[in-house]
């Protein structure tokens, strides 16, 4: 047995340690808003990019990742700066300096959502717990977005949603730590319905085929309501399982249903296959009720349009952003993305790039990475120069409100990227709704959670 002999030096050392220990919390709080999850230590800050790297949306995920890498490059002062040069927040120039975020160099880690809720949650959790990610962003499915948003709320980090179009993401499943720049099913419907009325008339009978999960349900509900308000009748809504690949047996009954419009609430591979089937069954050459039979694809993506090939020609839909837009911001983004990768960015890439810049700017203005500080800076933020015109992050539900693009499959594409043409830019007022609108009601934003 050894006895500890107190020495003068030992006592001083112990005293100094104890003193430092007691002083510790004061030191941390003094260093602006500590006491939150994964406060960056040292000279770097880590962001977590959670995108589908395998599974049916892997190509969209790859495009999202490209956009994130470009955003990180721009934030750290590399490249031509892209939309950092056009982005204005609350009427003045953005707070980004090209020296990282709050002077810390931006690093990132990536996770694979596999477009499965449990896999997406696991990869987000790992990035938060093991890699110290202070913010999670990305994804290409509403099911995943809602799952990861819930996780980030519990963990106390910010979630900047990627491509998610279900009303529920900022409706009944909204969370204080979650923010969505992408538009939603309601907005698509509100923008599309007047165009459809103008093109196809008031007296139409619509048959819906709908992907059987949160996004499909809410989009179908929105489109049905908006077109019925214009005088259309919804003849039938058939839910199709996400795993369906051959839609022929769902398309065949449409022929004799008396409907003269087919609405495909499908995305990704589902959309490619159902549209191909519908065209093969001669629906577009058919005359019903004395009118030409029409097909509508409410949510379009250029990557999907490429998969469907010629079948998209002349078909109407909506999109969050398109590379052919001619505003300065879109041109700047297309230029930096196109120069780096050799092809134009998709709408998924656009929303992810914008979300990263918005997060960084919020951190700069708040002077902290604390989720509560960031949330405060984002809530009610009015910004422009990001490719969608004047946009607002509504404080009540963390949804961005901006103009919506109605697009049509181009009849005479001039290149492999030139598949969609913008037929109308629907102004924000027309797609806006009250935060307590029945299609969005039932959820509670709750309180921001700093996680510590």
């Amino acid at each position, binding site marked *: 047995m050894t006895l500890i002999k107190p020495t003068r030096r030992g006592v001083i050392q112990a005293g100094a340690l104890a003193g430092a220990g007691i002083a510790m919390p004061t030191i941390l709080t003094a260093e602006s808003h500590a006491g939150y999850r994964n406060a960056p230590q040292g000279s770097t800050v880590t962001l977590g990019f959670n995108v589908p790297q395998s599974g049916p949306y892997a*190509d969209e995920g790859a495009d999202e990742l490209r956009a994130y890498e470009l955003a990180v490059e721009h934030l750290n002062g590399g490249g031509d700066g892209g939309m950092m040069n056009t982005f204005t927040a609350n009427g003045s120039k953005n707070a980004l300096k090209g020296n990282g975020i709050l002077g810390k160099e931006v690093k990132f880690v990536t996770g694979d959502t596999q477009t499965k809720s449990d896999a997406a949650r696991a990869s987000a959790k790992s990035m938060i717990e093991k890699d110290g990610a202070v913010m999670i962003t990305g994804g290409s499915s509403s099911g995943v977005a809602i799952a990861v948003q819930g996780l980030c709320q519990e963990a106390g980090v910010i979630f900047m949603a990627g491509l998610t179009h279900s009303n529920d993401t900022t409706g009944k499943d909204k969370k204080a730590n979650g923010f969505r720049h992408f538009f939603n099913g309601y907005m698509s419907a509100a923008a599309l319905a007047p165009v459809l009325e103008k093109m196809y008339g008031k007296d139409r009978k619509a048959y819906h085929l709908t992907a059987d999960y949160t996004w499909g349900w809410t989009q179908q509900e929105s489109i049905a309501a908006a077109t019925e308000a214009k005088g259309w009748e919804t003849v039938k809504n058939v839910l199709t399982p996400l795993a369906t690949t051959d839609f022929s047996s769902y398309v065949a009954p449409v022929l004799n249903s008396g409907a003269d419009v087919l609405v495909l609430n499908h995305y990704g591979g589902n959309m490619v296959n159902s549209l191909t089937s519908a065209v*093969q069954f001669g629906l577009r050459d058919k*005359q019903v009720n004395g009118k030409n039979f029409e097909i509508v694809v409410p949510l379009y993506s250029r990557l999907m349009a490429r998969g469907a090939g010629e079948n998209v020609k002349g078909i109407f839909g909506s999109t969050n952003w398109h590379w052919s837009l001619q505003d300065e911001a879109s041109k700047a983004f297309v230029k930096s993305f196109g120069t780096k990768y050799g092809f134009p960015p998709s709408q998924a890439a656009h929303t992810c790039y914008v979300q990263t810049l918005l997060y960084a700017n919020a951190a700069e203005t708040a002077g902290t990475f604390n989720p509560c500080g960031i949330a405060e800076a984002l809530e009610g933020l009015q910004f422009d120069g990001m490719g969608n015109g004047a946009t607002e992050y509504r404080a009540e539900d963390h949804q961005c409100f901006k103009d919506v693009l109605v697009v049509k499959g181009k009849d005479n594409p001039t290149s492999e990227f030139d598949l969609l043409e913008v037929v109308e830019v629907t102004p924000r007022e027309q797609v806006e709704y009250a935060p307590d609108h029945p299609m969005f009601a039932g959820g509670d934003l709750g309180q921001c959670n700093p996680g510590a």
Partner: protein
Amino acid sequence: MDAILLQILNGLDKGSAYALIALGLTLIFGTLGVVNFAHGALFMIGAFCAVTLQKILTISSVSIDPEKKDFLGNPMEVKTPYVESLFGEATGQLIINWSVPLAILFAIPVMLAVGYIMERGLIKHFYKRPHADQILVTFGLAIVIQEIVKHYYGANPIPTPAPDALRGSFDFGVLLGFDPNAVIYPLWRLVYFAFSALVIGAVFAFLQFTTFGMVVRAGMADRETVGLLGINIDRRFTLTFGIAAAVAGLAGVMYTPINSPNYHMGMDFLVLSFVVVVVGGMGSLPGAVLAGFLLGILESFAAMNEVKSFFEAIYLPSIDQIIIYLVAIIVLLTRPRGLMGRRGVMEE
């Protein structure tokens, strides 16, 4: 009535794909005794043979057209396929247009080779191992093949259209005395059905009327005795594996205009094809074909709105998703050997 006719056509069409895959599966199981979970992957490789040929035919020389601008405003690169510069524009375009049917010629040697390599390189080591081992190794192989294809071709579906001449739809109803436009069916799907019938017929004729086929059939019934007669049954079985692979591959090639192929398409068909084999009777070739068409038609009928509402009323929702498995359960309970499984074949 016209709706029913349409669903019968749909069912025959789906059934063609099931039957072709199941035929290969049961051929492999019957001869080699191997449960081949990589069979769906062979179907997918076949489809990607069509994609590959399309890519090869469209390999292009690149020239700069200063008149046109690309998306960044730089002078546009204009691509001219070598096939067009080699055979003239009209012939070149015709060849590219017919790339899917041409891919049949391309796929046969490729699939035979893939089947040969797969059997000699991996599967022959598992003949004497338990079925569980075989399932694990072939399932693993399927995933590996899938990931390789995804790496090189991407995850999104790749459009592989049918030739222009076969792209439209055919007014089937008029033939049967219905009003015009009542029963319209895609032309290519009819081609697919006819093609499948042809392949199935060819396989049966081959097994029925050739010495090779006779030995294989004898081997399926009693491998040991055929071996004792001094016949090298193994070599023939390797070839059988190649044929089964080619059948699955051809089914895949011709399927590409119906649904744009992606790396996952094999898995989508695999489970259903297994059910088809079990319902038809393990090791029974006519059973596989019969069950393929039967289940295809049942599945199509179950997707009809009237049928769905009827089953919903008796608390069986989503009948179109479960019908095949329901039928499988009923068949296995009442006829454990499957519809056409014979006593003594594939039984201990």
